[in-house]
């Protein structure tokens, strides 16, 4: 197994290096020699690894008014807030509606209607109401995460095994104890399964918010839009790479939490 891991990692590294090298090389070949600006593959549009690395170092430095790390921090911060608020509210709502047939029936059409609305259409409205700052981005991330978690929790709350509830009752449990020891843990299993998609979607919500939010909201989405305005491919690539890195780290972190919380499930019991 260990040897297998080694070769997998070696392959991955090799592919990455080959990709970057090809990118660097191909964007350097001129179509007509010595004529400036005529390339087979024009770095004006997709930049080059060396230029991107250069811009990365520059944007990280204190020479710029809004350094890159502060933009990244702003994006991460809004994502995590939207994620946490979305999970909490989605779980509570899903549990309440899932355990009461009457309430579920009353709210059903509203939920379906709101969920089928493309969330991106809400961006201008949210910006109008919550301004251009952090709050608007959090609200956008929340509006996506909430529904993912809500639907999962709702399903989970409705599929609690009735025999588990009966057996708890025979062991002397009251209604509150049943809620705490049967319904909540059984539902949480479904909720946890929605954590990984939720974090990715929270990031989408935040970046879209940053596209419109302008400088006061900051963030990597702002850097992307600014680069579009100045036709600066290198800066845009920097933003994309950093966003990708943030996405990977967050997804891995959530995965760790998920494995820890669901370690009782057969599919998490490899070891």
């Amino acid at each position: 197994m260990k040897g297998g891991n080694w070769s997998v990692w070696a392959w991955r590294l090799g592919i990455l290096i080959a990709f970057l090298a090809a990118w660097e090389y191909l964007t350097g070949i001129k179509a007509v020699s010595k004529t400036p600006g005529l390339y087979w593959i024009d770095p004006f549009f997709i930049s080059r690894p060396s230029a991107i690395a250069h811009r990365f170092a520059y944007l990280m430095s204190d020479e710029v008014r809004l350094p890159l790390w502060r933009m990244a921090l702003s994006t991460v911060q809004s994502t995590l807030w939207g994620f946490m608020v979305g999970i909490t509210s989605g779980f509570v709502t899903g549990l309440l509606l899932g355990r009461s047939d009457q309430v579920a029936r009353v709210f059903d059409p509203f939920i379906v209607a709101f969920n089928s609305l493309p969330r991106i259409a809400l961006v201008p409205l949210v910006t109008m109401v919550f301004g251009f700052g952090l709050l608007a981005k959090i609200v956008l991330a929340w509006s996506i995460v909430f529904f993912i978690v809500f639907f999962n929790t709702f399903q989970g709350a409705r599929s609690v095994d009735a025999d588990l509830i009966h057996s708890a009752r025979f062991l002397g449990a009251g209604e509150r104890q049943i809620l705490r020891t049967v319904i909540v843990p059984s539902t949480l299993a479904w909720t946890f399964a929605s954590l990984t998609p939720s974090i990715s979607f929270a990031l989408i919500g935040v970046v879209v918010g940053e596209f419109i939010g302008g400088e006061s909201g900051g963030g990597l989405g702002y850097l992307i839009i600014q680069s579009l305005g100045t036709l600066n491919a290198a800066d845009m690539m920097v933003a994309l790479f950093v966003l990708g890195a943030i996405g990977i780290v967050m997804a891995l972190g959530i995965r760790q939490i998920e494995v820890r919380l669901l370690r009782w499930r057969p599919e998490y019991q490899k070891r």
Partner: protein
Amino acid sequence: MSRVRIAIRDLSKTFHQGPREICAVSGVTFDVHDREFVAVVGPSGCGKSTILNMIGSLVAPTSGEILVDGSRVGARSAPQIGYVFQKDTIFPWRTVERNIALGLEYRGVGRAEVGARVKEAVKLAGLEGFEEVFPATLSGGMRQRVALMRSLVVNPEILLMDEPFGALDTHTKLNLHAELLGLWGSRRQTVVFVTHDLSEAITLADRIVVMTRRPGRIKLVYDVKLPRPRDVIALRESSEYLREYGEIWHALGEEFQERLS
């Protein structure tokens, strides 16, 4: 005979399935005495589990009544009743130890006492070393052991068991029979044990209620005369066992045959 703990009087249950009415149990009357082990046997679909569910308040009778210790069974099950389900109902998100502790936690028993009683139960069930394991890694037999100990640890005076060993292989089943008889021998709960396995009923019970096929009525009530303590393996070779098996099998066989014809 000692006092009656469960009195079942002219009990009937009709289920409605759309426009159809299915009569599952019809005019069943029998008593279960204190410290008695009664098995209810019958072909599948004869309503034997329904009777157990009615004693445990999971299903309301259509007519007739059930008295547990003299009071009529209502919407909530009597507190002295424990129930072991056919299906595995141990909580997958709790370790073995914390599953067994459930009933004690519900009753607000202090932490130290819970620890001591769970430890004793784990030992009795031969689950040492598995205390902190999640149920997903356990075999069917071990899971059912956990379920049994979880019910027994709160000392129920009456134990209702709905084919608890139905899904297990013969070998595991025999082991659990021996363990159940051992546990029952020391505490002597009043037990109603539902099964379709006749040899299981003879091995365990003092009395066997044989049901007809649907609508379930009582075909006969049979007193098992095998002496206790019983050895679940040696028992099967004894001539008394074979004779009793033959007698009940004859009655039960008629029920199977009628269905075929």
